[in-house]
């Protein structure tokens, strides 16, 4: 047992172990101490991601294959695989889970034990999505992820919760049907759904061959892209996203925006791009969806009346940037997409954590009821400004660098117009966030909010932690670029 194999198995066994152990305790005890169990699961995930990556690097390998309870050397056995990209996404999953637990410590009240169970199953689902090497297994874990999210949104049982959950369920299942149909179509051509067997399919098909299977592969690509685009929540598939984010408890919104729509949506598209990037319409269609979603998402965000809705539409817009980076299909594009995923996780989770703080302290998130809170809640105000700068891509934050990388990747791939539009669309991000700043923090304090206090405890910790990440990444980026360069990636 090497460190690497322990960490690798930890991604699979860790969450399930936490669920099993947690449910051994009696209900009251479990409810009281849910923080420690869920927190342990999240921290374990983070440690395993960091430790595993370090071990992988020291071994000088680029990937590591393993099975959970079986021997992968058997003929045709399924296997999980780890590589640098997946480690980063696993780290993000762990980080978001940790933040969510920190927030849930204050916001989630009566169904804490369900929260813990579902969080761990969700983490397992996302880990599974990230680790598998087979398109069908990807679908299975996607389903796990989605189902956990529906339940997590619905379990708070207000009208809005149930409604958001149901809308999400309907659209998400539609995407599931799309993806599954696509999988069936692909299988008609290849007879296998392993990534290794699917890669290079572009050379084996041609549109004019007159074969049904080739035609179906093209149909499958359209279905796959729209399926994962629904999961990502990009325009024109975004209608569920603001509803789900707004209705869910903030601890769950953080999970949704920070991890789920990246792992379930963007990672799926990443896989599609990796496997079928050489088929002509895949890259351009991603780019088209991306640019539309950047602009429409930001325009819609400007008009929203509720804090979390603004942030949700901002997510739509930011996902567009990630898709744009992915659409280039180059290494730089992939690095840029990952960088933006990381920075998006940090700043969007900060904004949602701020939402939790506002909700806890003022009891409302309607923008018309908030105003001038920066004297009362200085830390929240400061962290939200940093998140705002990062979202709008203003230095020295992480968001600036990732946006710059995206622009450079687009430029390298030969689409300067897209790069220009994407950059100037940054002004729209500034527009909706500056509105948010003005109505919530900047400005004169409303008299009825004069007694509001700064949030304490775990939510405050989460805010500070995320801001440190945003700023730290922003300042360390030159160093990170050097490291990537030394690693031969850039």
């Amino acid at each position, binding site marked *: 047992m090497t460190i690497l194999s322990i960490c690798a198995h930890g991604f699979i066994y860790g969450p399930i172990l936490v669920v099993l152990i947690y449910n051994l305790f009696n209900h009251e005890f479990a409810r009281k101490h849910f923080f420690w169990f869920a927190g342990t699961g999240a921290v374990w995930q983070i440690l395993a991601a960091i430790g595993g990556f370090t071990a992988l690097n020291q071994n000088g390998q680029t990937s590591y294959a393993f099975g959970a309870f079986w021997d992968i050397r058997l003929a045709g056995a399924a296997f999980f695989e780890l590589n640098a990209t997946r480690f980063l996404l696993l780290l993000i999953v762990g980080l978001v889970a940790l933040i969510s637990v920190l927030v849930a410590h204050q916001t989630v009240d009566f169904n804490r034990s369900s929260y813990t169970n579902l969080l761990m199953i969700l983490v397992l689902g996302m880990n599974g999505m990230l680790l598998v090497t087979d398109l069908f297994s990807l679908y*299975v874990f996607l389903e796990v992820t989605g189902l956990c999210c529906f339940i997590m949104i*619905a379990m708070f049982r207000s009208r809005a919760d*149930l409604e958001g959950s149901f809308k999400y369920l*309907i659209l998400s299942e539609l995407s599931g049907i799309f993806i599954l*149909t696509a*999988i069936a179509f692909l*299988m*008609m051509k290849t007879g296998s759904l392993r990534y290794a067997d699917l890669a290079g399919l572009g050379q084996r098909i041609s549109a004019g061959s007159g074969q049904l299977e080739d035609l179906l592969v093209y149909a499958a690509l359209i279905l796959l892209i729209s399926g994962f685009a629904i999961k990502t929540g990009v325009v024109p598939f975004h209608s569920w996203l*603001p509803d789900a984010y707004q209705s869910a408890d903030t601890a769950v919104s953080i999970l949704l925006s920070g991890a789920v729509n990246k792992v379930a949506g963007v990672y799926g598209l990443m896989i599609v791009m990796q496997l079928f990037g050489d088929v002509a319409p895949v890259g351009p269609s991603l780019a088209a969806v991306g640019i539309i979603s950047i602009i429409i998402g930001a325009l819609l965000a400007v008009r929203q009346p509720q804090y979390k809705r603004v942030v949700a539409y901002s997510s739509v817009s930011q996902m567009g940037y990630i898709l744009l980076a992915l659409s280039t299909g180059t290494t730089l594009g992939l690095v840029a997409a990952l960088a933006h995923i990381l920075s998006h996780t940090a700043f969007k989770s900060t904004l949602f954590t701020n939402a939790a703080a506002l909700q806890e302290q003022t009891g409302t998130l309607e923008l018309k009821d908030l105003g001038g809170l920066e004297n009362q809640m200085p830390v929240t105000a400061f962290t939200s400004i940093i998140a705002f700068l990062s979202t709008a891509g203003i230095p020295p934050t992480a968001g600036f660098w990732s946006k710059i990388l995206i622009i450079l990747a687009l430029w390298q791939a030969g689409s300067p117009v897209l790069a220009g539009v994407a950059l100037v669309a940054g002004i729209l991000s500034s527009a909706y966030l500056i509105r948010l700043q003005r109505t919530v923090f900047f400005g004169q304090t409303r008299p009825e909010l004069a007694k509001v206090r700064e949030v304490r405890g775990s939510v405050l910790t989460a805010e500070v932690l995320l801001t440190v990440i945003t700023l730290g990444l922003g300042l360390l980026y030159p160093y990170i670029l050097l490291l990537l360069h030394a690693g031969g990636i850039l």
Partner: protein
Amino acid sequence: MNLVIVLLIIGLLMIVAGCWCLMRTFHLLKMTIGIEVAMKAVTLFLVLAGRISGKIALSETFVITVMVAEVIVAVVGTGTAVGLFRKYGSMDVRNLKQLKG
């Protein structure tokens, strides 16, 4: 027009019917049923794919796994619908107007 094409067309029509159900009906449970209807077609596609590529056993395992997922989706969908029913006393999807931007 051989067997494969006929089955494909029938499957696609099933999916259209399922999507129609999601879009045009107002009953929450009915929408969940719509999902299931479309899932039937997908099951058919999977088995068909197995037969075409000669990997029927593989596609059978897929179908079995999909069925598990299908059941859980039905559970969650029904559960949420029942939850909404308890709130509104009705299963009309047009009641859902809490979330607007």
